């Protein structure tokens, strides 16, 4: 939320009006480190049209995520709950579950990743086209969970980059939904950009 009443005429401290990321003048701009200021200064210049297009593209991307469930264990059952009619992720546009990595842009790693399947996970991630996002669902995918064991990967960020971590063992469907909405916000802010 923007800070209220910043323009106090009695104050002797010069202030700029404070805004939360994604809510001020630079809303929808690419805010990669170091870039945002340059872009803001360039408003009205040649970059204006590009950034506005990005905003539209990001809005579209955030509202139609196509998830690829990399479901290995218990979390996959809660993922199914989230897709099913009771919770219904279709309300947020992420209901087109694709099992081919080539048709998906959001990988939801639901379940424990063990050393034996780690190369498979990496390969499937590499097969996804850009832009791609990853949600680590649950304690196991985040950190190995309570399996501090000889065959369990201690968090999938050992292997692939992760955008959103969802806590829980397993997370509730609404928890996962919250994670997807957070990712949507991040995409719409233009924070995530790879490739």
């Amino acid at each position, binding site marked *: 939320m923007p800070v209220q009443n910043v323009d106090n005429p009695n104050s002797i401290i010069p202030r700029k009006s404070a805004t939360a990321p994604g809510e001020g003048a630079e809303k929808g701009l690419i805010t990669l480190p170091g870039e945002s200021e340059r872009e803001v200064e360039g408003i009205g210049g040649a970059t204006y049209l590009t950034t506005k297009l990005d905003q539209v593209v990001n809005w579209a991307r955030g509202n139609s995520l196509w998830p690829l469930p*990399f*479901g*290995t*264990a*218990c979390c*996959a*059952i*809660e993922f*199914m*709950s989230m897709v*099913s*009619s*009771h919770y219904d992720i279709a309300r947020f546009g992420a209901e087109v579950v694709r*099992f081919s990595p080539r048709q998906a842009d959001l990988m939801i790693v639901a*379940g*424990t990743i*063990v*050393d*034996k*399947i*780690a*190369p*498979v*996970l990496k390969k*499937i991630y590499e097969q996804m086209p850009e832009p791609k996002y990853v949600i680590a669902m649950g304690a196991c995918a985040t950190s190995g969970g*309570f*399996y*501090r*064991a*000889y*065959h*369990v990967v201690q968090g999938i960020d050992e292997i692939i980059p992760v955008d959103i971590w969802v806590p829980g*063992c*397993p997370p*509730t469907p609404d928890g996962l939904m919250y994670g997807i909405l957070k990712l949507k916000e991040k995409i719409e802010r233009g924070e995530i950009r790879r490739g």
Partner: protein
Amino acid sequence: MSTLTKYSDIPYTGPAPTNREPYVPADAEKMNARGAEIASRISGVTQETGQDLPTFVVDKERIVDVLRALKHDLKFTLPLDCFGVDYPRREQRFDIVYQLYSIENNERVRLKVRVGEGESVPSSLPVYQGLNWFEREVFDMFGVKFDGHPNLRRILTHENFQGHPLRKDYDPAQRWLLTEEGVAKIIPQIDPRFAQEEAESDFERVTLNLGPSHPATHGTLRIVVTLDGETIVGADTEIGYLHRCFEKMSETHTYQQVIPFTDRLNYCSAIINNVGYCMTVEKMLGIQSPARADYVRLILSELMRIGDHLICIGTNLVDMGALTNFWYLFQPREEMYGLIEACCGARLLPSYLRIGGLAVDVPPNFLQMTQKLVDSIPRFLDDVDKLVRTNRIFRDRVEGIGPISAEDALDFGFTGPCLRACGIPYDVRKANPYLGYETYDFDVPIADGGDTYARYLVRMEEMRQSLRIIQQAIDRGLPTGPVIVDNPYVALPPKSKVYNEMESLIYHFKLIMHGIQPPVGETYFQVEGGNGELGFYIVSDGTKNPYRVRVRPPCFAIYQAFTKMITGQTIPDAIAALGSLNIIAGELDH
């Protein structure tokens, strides 16, 4: 560790457990007598007395003969389990334990073969083909070789793995990374066996890899099939893609801490796993959970069984293209989660049980909520049943698909719905009742044919029978009383006492710090899981950590027959058959 001294008169009046006391099962006398009877009919076995099952120590040279005699003369037709236990201080450090079951006589028997480092045991595959994967698992986990095993390679861990993790001297956290080159090592081991058989065919053979990441493999199963045209002429399965080291983790945690790990074995019916594990430890401690706890355990077990079957049928139908049923059948599951959430706050993996009872009492409207569920579920079942049973596409895709004969099913160690679909009415709830199942009126459905359709029918009917059990339980009403045993060496004292009484505070401290310490010994207990006989074998050395926890996962035995079931069929048939077996990766790979 020292023994506890009782300082004041809190209600518990039983004896304080002392460490290193031997475990004496309640029915030891009976088992000794039966063991002596069996030993008189089979030569070359040494009876071990004082166990909960007739137990024999067998020389490794004699094991195949003894197994054969037990199978043919004494009707021990169902191989339940084969696993290892490591005692590093002994000269012959490994116990290879075989457990068999006789459906005709309703009895179990345990055999132990003692081997040292580097020694090998003759493979028992000529007698029971169902011990195939169990022997591979022993090799993987303990490094004991089986002479004459056709395919003795690692099964749960990966190709780059060094050492044998369930040995006591293996560091539980020692990992070995698997690289792309490591993955490639396995391919020649799976492929060439099919290539060798040169058949007369006009078609070029194709090898197709299904999984481990494939929508129809429900997680992490990998199937490699060789196709001649559309027909599967050879298949191999690779498992271990969800090997989460349950057994090693149990050894590094206390008895109470193992409960969440058991939840995650068959995660579709978590409470049944809790019941199996807790009752095994209770058997060892010689305690009986209160009537109210048993009652809630029974109701929730049956609800979980329904939930398990709903997932199985729902996902099986999705694989065949009937997506509506999947969404429709998830609705009663959501209602079920609501009930469990009201009981303990968690949905899918509640960890609701404790050794000796339940974690907390049920909410006051527990029975009304259960009644509502029981009233609403039949409509879902009837709708789906009507929709698919009269559907020709469904019938064509399941009838005669993935069949297995009753003899083969027994030999492979099938239990549960998959065995009952072959016409064998074996159900642990009837054969060895627990939680008071003997007082409830229910039928064990069987079907003939052993195909995918038979498994569907059995599961559908089992859900109706479970509803019958729950309805009877509701009619009896909730027993009054506590939900956990009044034994400060097992159950934590209530918080009000911990804050106000010195001795309760001490008990609380002792139990948290030193855990539950069962007497020294071993025991086995089984419950009817969603997929069949779910057994736990626990060895205690008198300390707070279990010395060894072995789970007998029903899926493991069932899935090894899969290649046999699909050979000669097509890929779509294989998908339909796989869904109907309800292979849960967490349980399969434990």
